[in-house]
């Protein structure tokens, strides 16, 4: 197995409060890693740290992505290198057209890869095909980014962006929160379709349900800013039976 990301002794703070207290974690190419943990364990901070959120200050450690430390890289540089995060709460941006935004993002990536930009017609064909695959309405092309979208629509829009941008490393930050069973299944189907043996997924979740649809290769339990345990789906079974106390104190 080839490592796509190595997180070494990662310490990170938000507003001067240390949240990550020495994370060590290896993530493998083509695998699905589930990250679970109680509230306040540092799951979302970990994802924010990987994508370079400006609220997070890394005080120690490194994140090696494809062998390169990305700690000092800007968020857009990390994105162009193939790191994508589906947000737990996608922001609404009135006035920014969904299709325009997506085409700008895709063409930024294509430029980074040395490819020519897609013109409006080419992009529209691609977008319509993806919308159809995801069972989304075409009207969203003309709507403002996430504005007035239901919770499910927002999450599907994140998946749409993932499909268009074809990242190498995908973080799904509580993508299952607020989704009904049908929407969860659509999201999971889309993720499973994108599992190609090369693309890596990091699924942050509180619940087992999504892991019934997207079978993880690894499960990591986070608590108090550290990785407490790494294993397989059996960790989720234990968690379901006895809660986080089964893993003891960190």
């Amino acid at each position, binding site marked *: 197995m080839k490592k796509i990301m190595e997180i070494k002794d990662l310490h990170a703070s938000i507003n001067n409060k240390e949240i990550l207290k020495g994370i060590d974690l290896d993530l493998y190419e083509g695998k699905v890693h589930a990250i679970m943990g109680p509230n306040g364990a540092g799951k979302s901070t970990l994802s924010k740290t990987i994508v370079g959120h400006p609220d997070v200050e890394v005080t120690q450690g490194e994140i090696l992505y494809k062998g390169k430390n990305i700690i000092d890289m800007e968020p*857009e540089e990390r994105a162009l290198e193939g790191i*994508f995060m589906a947000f737990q709460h996608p922001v609404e941006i009135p*006035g*920014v057209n969904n299709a325009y935004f997506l085409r700008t993002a895709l063409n930024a990536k294509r430029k980074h890869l040395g490819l020519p930009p897609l013109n409006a017609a080419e992009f529209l064909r691609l977008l319509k095909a993806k919308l159809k695959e995801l069972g989304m309405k075409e009207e969203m092309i003309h709507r403002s980014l996430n504005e007035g979208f239901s919770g499910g629509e927002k999450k599907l829009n994140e998946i749409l962006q993932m499909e268009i*941008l074809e990242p190498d490393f995908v973080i799904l930050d509580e993508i299952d929160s607020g989704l009904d069973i049908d929407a969860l299944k659509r999201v999971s189907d889309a993720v499973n379709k994108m599992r190609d043996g090369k693309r890596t997924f990091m699924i942050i979740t509180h619940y087992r349900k999504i892991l019934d649809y997207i079978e993880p290769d690894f499960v990591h339990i986070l608590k108090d800013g550290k990785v407490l345990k790494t294993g397989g789906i059996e960790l989720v079974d234990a968690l379901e039976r006895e809660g986080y106390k089964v893993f003891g104190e960190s």
Partner: protein
Amino acid sequence: MKPIALNLDAYSHKKAIVQKLRSMGMPTPKTEHYRYFGIKPILERDYTFLPPEPGAIEPGDHLEIVDGRVAQAPKGLYIEHLPQVRVDDSHYDQIYYISHLLAPATIQIEIEEDMELPITHKFTQNGAFIPYRIKFLVHEGVKFKIKEEMVVVSEGSLYFYGYDIQIAPKGEVRLVSNRVTNIEDFALFGSHSIEVGKEATFTLFTFDLGNAKTIHNYHTILHERASHEANHVIFAKRQARLGNTFHIEHRGKEATTTQRSRNILKDRGRGIFDGLLIVKNPAKFASITQSSKTILLNDGAYMVSKPQMEIYTEYITQASHGSTTGHLDEEALFYLRQRGIALEEAKEMLVLSFLEEIFTRLGDEELRREFIAIYEERQ
């Protein structure tokens, strides 16, 4: 000539205006609507006074005014140059009266049938002080669209200009002003008076972009069931001061005013939105709304936002006003960057999205594209 040192005795032939100015006094840094504009260094400067004298007018596809003189006009447009016209006797701005006093003639145009009129103002003189006035008389039920743009190559100059627009009952006037002033040492004072007749409509869009010092003061009077919509965009950068001030008076019942200002300020740019909506006692059942929203792109930028209302009647249908000033939404910015969009491009997307409401109301895709191109150039 220093505009502040005006000798009123020399203008005895315009007695009413002189009397008005004597009662108001000359504008000073403490004059409310100039308080934040920094009027003193502009008006105390010595300029070459170049009052525009009427001359030959070439035929063209638009009205072109060069340094206050009509140089070109569409065929069939009847233009008069009148030494004296009836002026608004209740304007709040002294510059309104000064410009009427100093302009040798008012350019008066009667609009008797529906028409669209592009107007280009060219400012070409250096170190000059040039006052001029334009008056439109819009006949009953007539629809009149003006698209105004400015070409500024003048440096170290001061221009006073302004519109007097009288809209007869059921008339409709739509004025779109694209005011790009990209010379830092350039000052423009626009002082306008608009009287909107019974059941008439006045729609205004203004786009102020650039590095100069410009201020526009609007006195608008609304009669019974008149409707006024005003949309303003300010993008000030470097040392620019760009402002709009208003007194909008509801004199007739059931009139409507909706006013929006969206302001983007960068570097040490200053924006001014100072709007007073006045509902007089007989003007029952007015609907008035005002909103000013500002984005400061950095800490040195400054916005003066003063939405105000004075209501002298107990019977009002709707009244609301609000003002917000803040920075770009950091979470939205991060979201765009997480999709690989570079910081500056992400900022531009958010700024343009902030203006989208105005562009949507404008409903003119060509002008929208023009504005975006200008905005991108100005970055």
